[in-house]
């Protein structure tokens, strides 16, 4: 019997390892993708510190590497928080912006652009308002909800706060200067990795690693929480603490992601499903799988954005366009269960 468990464990480990290697390879190859193509050997030589030509060094180190790392972090963060929320809300149709963090972050950025802040200011405002929006949602649910209604009120609060910030975004757009501010806001809201810098990556990497590690440690409790609040408590899960931890981690991840590259839809919804098809619903395996799949997915989508047309296509448009048919395809596979 024990052997069977060992085989299962190894199988899951190998799947995650394989995916990790795939993601890393995708990252490496992506360094060569773009209008200035670089071959794989040249990429490896440049990464090991060799200077083949100033252009290659410039393209790899200064332009593509930060963008690719940012894409991996953002994709992983969105997929991770989507997966955790789907478990927490016992609903496979939930995405990371359910509690209003995306709308809040979007408003923060739009307001910062209206106030003519610099890029760092825009990112900071976006992050702050993303966090603020979720805190407001949390406040609504704890102020008006009690006992079993709290999950429902959390979703309701999220809808209220999202629509509040959506309206505020419209208001900002309405008063913004139509020659330069309005296009900047619109472009920012479409989502793009083009403005990501190495310092963004450095700022995000540590919180990302901490949040991911904490969510991985929550995974066996999340399995149980997916069966329902009361049942989870009778199995020894402190649901209040767990919920607080999951919401804070997912909010930090989402707010970071949105502040870094604007609103990128569908990743947090589609990737958890794809990951479940691949490894099943057990969160112990699902969470690391989602993280890696999200990273690889966003990376590949961004490659497409950079290289498909002569001008860059905003990433948010591509993830939505690709996400919809992809999601429909997954729904046809629903007979396997979510």
């Amino acid at each position, binding site marked *: 019997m024990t052997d069977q468990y060992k085989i299962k464990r190894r199988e899951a480990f190998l799947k995650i390892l394989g995916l990790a290697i795939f993601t890393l390879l995708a990252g490496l190859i992506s360094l060569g993708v773009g209008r200035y193509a670089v071959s794989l050997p040249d990429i490896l030589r440049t990464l090991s510190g060799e200077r083949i030509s100033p252009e290659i060094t410039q393209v790899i180190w200064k332009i593509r590497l930060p963008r690719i790392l940012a894409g991996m972090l953002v994709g992983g963060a969105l997929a991770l928080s989507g997966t955790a929320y789907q478990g927490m809300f016992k609903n496979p149709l939930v995405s990371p912006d359910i509690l209003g963090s995306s709308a809040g972050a979007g408003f923060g950025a739009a307001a910062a652009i209206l106030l003519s802040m610099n890029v760092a200011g825009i990112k900071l405002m976006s992050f702050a308002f993303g966090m603020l929006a979720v805190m407001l949602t949390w406040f609504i649910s704890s102020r008006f909800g009690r006992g079993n209604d709290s999950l429902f009120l959390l979703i309701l609060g999220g809808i209220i706060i999202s629509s509040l910030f959506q309206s505020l975004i419209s208001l900002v757009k309405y008063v913004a200067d139509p020659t330069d501010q309005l296009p900047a806001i619109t472009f920012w809201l479409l989502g793009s990795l083009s403005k990501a810098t190495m310092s963004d990556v450095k700022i995000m990497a540590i919180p990302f690693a901490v949040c991911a590690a904490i969510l991985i440690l929550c995974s066996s*409790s999340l399995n149980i929480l*997916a069966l329902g609040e009361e049942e989870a408590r*009778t*199995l*020894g899960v402190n649901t209040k603490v767990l919920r607080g931890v999951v919401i804070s981690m997912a909010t930090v991840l989402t707010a970071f992601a949105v502040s870094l590259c604007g609103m990128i839809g569908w990743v947090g919804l589609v990737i958890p499903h794809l990951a479940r098809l691949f490894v099943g619903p057990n969160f112990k395996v699902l969470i690391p799988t989602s993280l890696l799949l999200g990273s690889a997915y966003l990376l590949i989508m961004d490659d497409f954005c950079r290289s498909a047309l002569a001008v860059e296509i905003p990433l948010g448009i591509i993830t939505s366009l690709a996400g919809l048919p992809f999601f429909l395809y997954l729904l046809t596979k629903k007979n396997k*269960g979510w």
Partner: protein
Amino acid sequence: MLIKVDGLSCGYDKKEVLSNLSFEIGEGELWCVLGSNGIGKSTLFKTLLGLLKPIRGEILIKDKPLPEWSRKELAKVIAYVPQSHTPPFPFKVREIVAMGRHPYQGQTGYMTDEDISRVEEAMEMTGITDLAERPYTRISGGERQLALIARAVAQSTDVMILDEPVSNLDFGNHAKVISYIREFAGMGKTIIMTTHDPDHAFIPGSHALLLDEGAVFASGMGRDILTEPAVTRMYHVKNKIVRYGEPEGRTCVPLYEGRNKSDQ
């Protein structure tokens, strides 16, 4: 005493559903909680499980007040078997049963050899080993109920609380589940279950707690207290308690009123 309830009133917010309950439950005892729909059986269970704060009174588990128990420690003493449900994700039956080991595991949820053997034992005991790799969402209601019972067995507790464990089961599965429950009681587990079938109070050695109008009106050995008037009081239906077999079994039969056409 394993469970001691003293002057307990329970309900939601200020609305009292059950008042002034006092009873004691000892090791290895089998208790059936009977009462009409909506009388407060589930409310009582939620309060016993610490999911609902009592309005008044006290519950002692192993002589320690319930609020002093941490969730994890309590989960090592009391297991709860809810009515079978369908979760949103297709966990395998084995994964569902393994969740019963959560109170014994650290944050990583690593399954030790002991955890594994408890899970396999529990599935064997309830006859669902063959279902281990099937998705829990795609087995029958009776099988799901058995999986939840297996999870409670894997939880290795002193007490098992079951919420209408046979309410959705066919005749065969009903008998199977009741046999398992008797077996667990025989192994020294304390069983408390709600039920809509008065006959469960006639299971040899079974105690009963009879609820009506927000209070316990009788508690004791099922065969002593579950009489025809008691059944009428709870369910407002004419009935007859029939004795049969050797050793004597009892069953409660409702006497239907009204006539159907072919009977006229």
